[in-house]
């Protein structure tokens, strides 16, 4: 009988299955955190909302000034911080629990509410419409590397600006089955969107367990919370709706010109919301956020392509992980007015940095023109970029098969690997490009000399022509319409 020895793996091996990337040490994070607490103790943040002010007044850990400025103790903030969930799983309207927001899981999605869209026929920009949002939704529904959907464009042709958010959500539901991040006009708007989502989910309790969307809410930098933002926050806290409170500071204008200072201020803004939601109802799924970037000093543009945005966002993600909060970050966006080399470069750098940092929801993918213009082509281009970026996440496997020492010895000096079984077994681990051209000069010319933009255009058209998302059930559709009609009626008076 032949004795067979077991596979003798080396012992005590720690393997880097994915890359590791860090901007800040724990010491640096602490410094930023302590500074943010200092800001909340000394100057605080202004809150334009009576119920919120009342909550702070009654809690014993805050001082509310005549100018509605709220200063809070570190003690309250630290108690509050312990109450937030470290995991939220989002479910699409098709029932798939596809987005597991937990430490170092990275998901990519669009941004929202862009006023302009490039018309695919004329090439000129025009106001964004309901149909544009449906089309963006369909494209995102199709693209495999997009995990969640924000509206991309704003429904500019809604009957009433006070209810555009319901129509916009309807357009999103029409086109896309993946989980959403939604914007709303005010607390009442958010309530309607929440009711619409509950129709798909079979009620409030189910929504709490498997929320279909996250509500996007933002303070105004520096250190100001307007009425509608707080209204939405408090409603979300009450109903257990996941919400992100996302400062959009502009370094040098509405925040200090240093990245560290911008992070201190935006963390102070976040921590105030952390305290407030805790006072309202401990345990709501609140998500940390931030579009942290610079103001370009020559053009005064709020830059979506600046390397500072990527760096500050990655640092902010380090802070979020230390605080055990889920992070809403930014990537795949550009200041370029068109889908050109600049858009390609800025998208690549920001997607790669956001992915490496481990941010959970990376939004604004596909923004061009510094958050003014919506382009479907940019979405399609970014899908390929994210595919490349995710390849980095596969790391460098170093097991026996990948070290390939026997194969190396067998092939020897001067040999070849093309025909070796080992190559056949492993080349499929490589990234398989869909839109990148790797032909030689002659073939490329013979095939028409197309650029990637040509292929992006063709692919965009193909998706628009062929992709239909899973339809919405007729009964649900009726109920959705009733909610929207009711809102329009209320606001037409």
């Amino acid at each position: 009988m032949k004795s067979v020895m077991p596979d003798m793996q080396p012992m005590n091996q720690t393997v880097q299955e994915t890359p590791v990337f860090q901007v800040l040490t724990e010491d640096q994070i602490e410094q930023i955190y302590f500074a943010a607490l200092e800001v909340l103790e000394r100057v605080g943040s202004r809150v334009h909302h009576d119920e919120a002010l009342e909550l702070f007044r009654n809690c014993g850990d805050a001082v509310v000034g005549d100018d509605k400025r709220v200063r809070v103790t570190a003690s309250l903030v630290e108690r509050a911080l312990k109450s937030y969930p470290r995991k939220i799983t989002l479910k699409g309207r098709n029932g798939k629990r596809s987005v597991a927001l937990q430490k170092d899981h990275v998901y990519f999605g669009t941004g929202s509410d862009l006023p302009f869209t490039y018309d695919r026929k004329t090439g000129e920009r025009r106001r964004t419409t309901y149909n544009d949002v449906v089309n963006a939704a369909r494209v995102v529904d199709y693209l495999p590397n997009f995990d969640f959907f924000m509206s991309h464009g704003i429904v500019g042709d809604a009957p009433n600006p006070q209810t555009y958010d319901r129509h916009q959500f309807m357009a999103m539901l029409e086109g896309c089955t993946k989980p959403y991040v939604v914007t709303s006009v005010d607390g009442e708007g958010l309530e309607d969107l929440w009711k619409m989502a509950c129709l798909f989910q079979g009620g409030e309790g189910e929504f709490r367990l498997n929320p279909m969307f996250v509500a996007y809410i933002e303070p105004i930098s520096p250190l100001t919370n307007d009425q509608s933002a707080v209204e939405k926050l408090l409603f979300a806290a009450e109903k257990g709706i996941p919400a992100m409170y996302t400062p959009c500071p502009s370094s040098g204008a509405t925040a200090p010109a240093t990245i560290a200072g911008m992070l201190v201020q935006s963390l102070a803004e976040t921590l105030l919301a952390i305290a407030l939601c805790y006072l309202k109802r401990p345990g709501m799924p609140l998500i940390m956020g931030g579009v942290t970037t610079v103001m370009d000093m020559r053009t005064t543009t709020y830059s979506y392509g600046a390397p500072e945005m990527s760096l500050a966002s990655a640092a902010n993600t380090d802070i979020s992980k230390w605080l055990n909060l889920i992070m809403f970050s930014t990537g795949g966006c550009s200041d370029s007015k068109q889908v050109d080399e600049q858009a390609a470069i800025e998208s690549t750098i920001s997607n790669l940095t956001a992915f490496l940092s481990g941010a959970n929801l990376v939004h604004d993918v596909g923004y061009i023109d510094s958050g003014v213009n919506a382009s479907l082509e940019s979405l399609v281009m970014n899908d390929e970029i994210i595919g490349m970026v995710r390849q980095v996440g596969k790391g460098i496997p170093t097991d026996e098969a990948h070290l390939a020492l026997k194969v190396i010895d067998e092939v020897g000096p001067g040999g070849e690997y093309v025909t070796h079984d080992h190559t056949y077994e492993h080349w499929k681990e490589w990234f398989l490009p869909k839109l990148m051209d790797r032909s030689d000069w002659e073939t490329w010319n013979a095939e028409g000399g197309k650029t990637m933009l040509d292929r992006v255009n063709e692919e965009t058209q193909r998706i628009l022509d062929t992709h239909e998302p899973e339809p919405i059930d007729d009964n649900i559709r009726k109920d959705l319409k009733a909610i929207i009609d009711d809102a329009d009626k209320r606001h037409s008076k």
Partner: protein
Amino acid sequence: MTFRTNYTVNKTTRFRLLSEDQKARIFRGVIKTLNDTGANVFHEEVREILGKNGCKVDGKRVRIPPEVVRDALASLPPTTTLFSWDGNEEMCYVEPGRSYFGPGPTPPNFNDPDTLERRPYLRKDATTVARVCDALPNIGYVQSLGSISDVTNGLADVYEFADMIQNTRKIIMNWAFNVENLEDEHRIGIVMAGGEEAFRQRPNFIHYSEPISPLTSDFDAIGKCLYCARHRIPQVYTPCSIGGATVPASHAGQIIVAMSESMVGVVLSQIVNPGTCIIIGGVQSILDMRRTIYSYGAPELGIMSAAFTEMLNYVGLPMYSTSGCTDTKKMELQSGIEAAFSIHMAMLSGANFVHDNGYTESGITGDIFQTVMDDEIIGMSRLIAGGVEVNEETLAVEEICNVGPGGHYLYEDHTMKWFRHHWQPTLMDRNSYEDWDSQGRLTMKDRIVKKTRDIIENYEGPESRVPEEAKKDIQKVLDKAEERVRSQS
């Protein structure tokens, strides 16, 4: 005033792909491959040297035992300084974490700066590349982006170096067909440095040569390696390994083969002249199986290069990495994506010399416009890799409290001071739509062409500062080389 103690900061970002255990395991693979499989060395003298110094020689095959590898690694210099040809400036430090980006060597074609059409690389292009690279702030060293087609056959390398070194003060990485041509280039370096001793003290070029995957050192390549080692010329000895063709398709296997074949050069150099500077690494990418192209844009290139850099850091060797290159035939979206991806990976990994910034068409056509685009990307990437400075001043608590809720920072002294630290784009457009529209709706490519041509026309390079004597001496070297080639044919 400082109250805090125990404060550790990331001065730059930290990025890694491999754990210590993984690096140790890959390195054991290299040791085993060198000891058991070995490499073919097509150079009798080199085999003799290796054989006398502990290697096992069997015909062409040389096997290197672990203790020989260990001794070679132990004698590597921890740092080497390279100087501008006038000797006045320290241009590069070859040491861990210092990254210099540059173009690459020898594509047959060049993208004509005037016509924007692809054509054979000409002598005048070497000067253009040197001048443009001299002007670009994020290009740290220079290679030619081509192989000259319009000089005497067999002297493209010498003419290239002779012209380039007079048109940039940055370190040039030259190449040579053979040892004789390398000697010519060495003489040119000596002329520019002002004598042999001056050159030894202040070397002004790095020599580039290539072993062949898998595990082969041909006569010319290892001969040049030997020459550089003897004359203490800093050198690069790196393969262009093709995953799935000349090396295994698995990344770890590819790194093991590539590192092993370069270790032949490392061992030889340290035996011949302990402490001489040698850099390894190379182009690490894959064979696209659908198009059978050696891809310069694949994400695997950036990933493997970053892992290779970590391996070399682990054993104390500098890394010659790759970035800023593309598979496209004309500048477009894909060029930007592929270049940005590989540049950012190389930057985050902290590779030492990162070449091929300006390669297009999978290494077939050199394109100075691509280099100019890459210069901008390197600037962006460097800012990110530079990390976040966290101290009392940058935390800006006083400023935040002074400005208060609803205020703004535009007129703060703090803003005036720190605004200057923001990255300033030269090619990225941040205009409003209206301004962009009224200024002619330029694409980034339009701006790149404009900037490049502006440099070519208006940049005053160092050429006028080259002493007349040196120019004459260089011409003498060229004349002698011509004579030698004539006599050989």
